[in-house]
């Protein structure tokens, strides 16, 4: 059995931060923590090698790093790929997540990493990678390494129940989708759910509901006459040509565009990027999604003090609620920092 272990420059004993730009290095033996894992697997006739890479090098030269790792895989032909554990080290955790995901997708061997649940790498894990839960620091090293060995042993035996038990007990719960065969077609299950609901019986949706967090509802402080009001939309309205490449679905970013001195939106100057609705009516007159012309009328009428000089935009379709939460918080922070007192948000 062959194990290839990915380590950063620090755990591969190349050096500290000053060596973070170190390129990928193949070492045909275990290094540091690898030696501990190799030792616990000694009954399994294990051949062990290390691939080391600087934390910065991986992120700055990801393509080159992955191609060097591919060369190591071709040369060594491992049965298992492991990375880390990264604990709560962000750059290392992200590299472990990306390398494991890449190896699992392209090389089709079990890929195992380990990190703390707050490590940003835990958000970048691809399908079927095992992510062993660790503590936040290397203080939990011994226990973490023991779990790596235990999982490799279970994978060698190939007992699916034991592997699933291990996953449930020791791995981070990373949401995944699997194809499963159900006992009845969807229309029958839907009718069964409906009947159960009508009869007041217990029923459970097949789709887990996203828990929405409670948040405070702010009220206007002071008088609207003294407030700067901003326009925000999830309708994807951007300058014609979409200069910043706002995604038309699964949005991950937001932008702000100036409306200083602009009285209304004209056809051909702005357009909507959004696969969640038919944008043709908005494209003919973008005020139908961001009501700039109406706000100017009310601003002139001194209904409020001023329209904020930028409007904010993202695409609210097919997106991750967690990402949308981030985007909302980012927009809110910028608005609050600009002295905006009230917001009108249009949503499709």
């Amino acid at each position, binding site marked *: 059995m062959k194990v290839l272990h990915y380590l950063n420059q620090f755990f591969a004993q190349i050096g500290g931060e000053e060596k973070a730009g170190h390129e990928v290095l193949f070492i045909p033996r275990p290094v540091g923590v690898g030696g501990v894992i190799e030792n616990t697997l000694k009954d399994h006739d294990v051949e062990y090698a290390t691939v080391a890479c600087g934390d910065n090098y991986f992120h700055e030269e990801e393509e080159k790093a992955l191609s060097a790792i591919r060369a190591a895989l071709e040369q060594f032909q491992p049965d298992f790929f492991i990375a880390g554990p990264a604990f709560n080290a962000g750059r290392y955790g992200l590299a472990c997540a990306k390398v494991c995901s890449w190896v699992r997708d392209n090389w089709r061997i079990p890929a195992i990493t380990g990190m703390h649940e707050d490590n940003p790498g835990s958000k970048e894990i691809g399908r079927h990678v095992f992510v062993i839960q660790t503590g936040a620091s290397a203080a939990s090293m011994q226990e973490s390494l023991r779990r790596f060995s235990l999982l490799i042993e279970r994978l060698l035996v190939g007992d699916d129940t034991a592997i699933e038990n291990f996953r449930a007990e020791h791995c981070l719960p990373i949401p995944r989708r699997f194809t499963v065969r159900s006992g009845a077609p969807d229309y029958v299950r839907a009718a069964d759910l409906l009947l159960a609901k009508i009869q007041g019986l217990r029923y459970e949706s097949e789709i887990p509901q996203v828990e*929405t967090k*409670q*948040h405070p*509802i*702010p*009220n*206007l402080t002071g008088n*609207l006459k003294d407030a700067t*009001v901003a326009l*925000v939309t999830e*309708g994807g309205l951007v300058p014609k040509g979409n200069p910043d490449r706002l995604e038309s679905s699964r949005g991950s970013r937001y932008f702000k565009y100036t409306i200083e001195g602009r009285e209304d939106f004209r056809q051909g100057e702005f357009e909507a990027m959004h696969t969640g*609705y*038919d*944008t043709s*009516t*908005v494209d*003919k*007159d973008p*005020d*139908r*999604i*961001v*009501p700039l*012309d*109406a*706000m100017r*009328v*009310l601003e002139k009428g001194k*209904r*409020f003090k001023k329209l904020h000089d930028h409007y904010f935009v993202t695409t609210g379709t097919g997106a991750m609620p967690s990402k949308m939460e981030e985007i909302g918080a980012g927009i809110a922070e910028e608005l609050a920092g600009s002295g905006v007192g*009230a*917001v*009108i*948000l*249009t*949503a*499709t």
Partner: protein
Amino acid sequence: MVVITCLSNVATQVGVGRILGGSKFHYPVGQPELPPEEELRWRVGLVEKGLCALETPVNEPKVF
């Protein structure tokens, strides 16, 4: 903040405080069948309703 949308039930579920019903799902603040001047007058009226909502203190989701 006031949200102008046609999906007021979704806005209520996620806990938006002030919700104002828009015209259509794919153009919440438009009335394309009206002549441009009338459409603007209608939009000013809708946004004015939004401003009134902003002036109304709320402590739970409310559809205006």
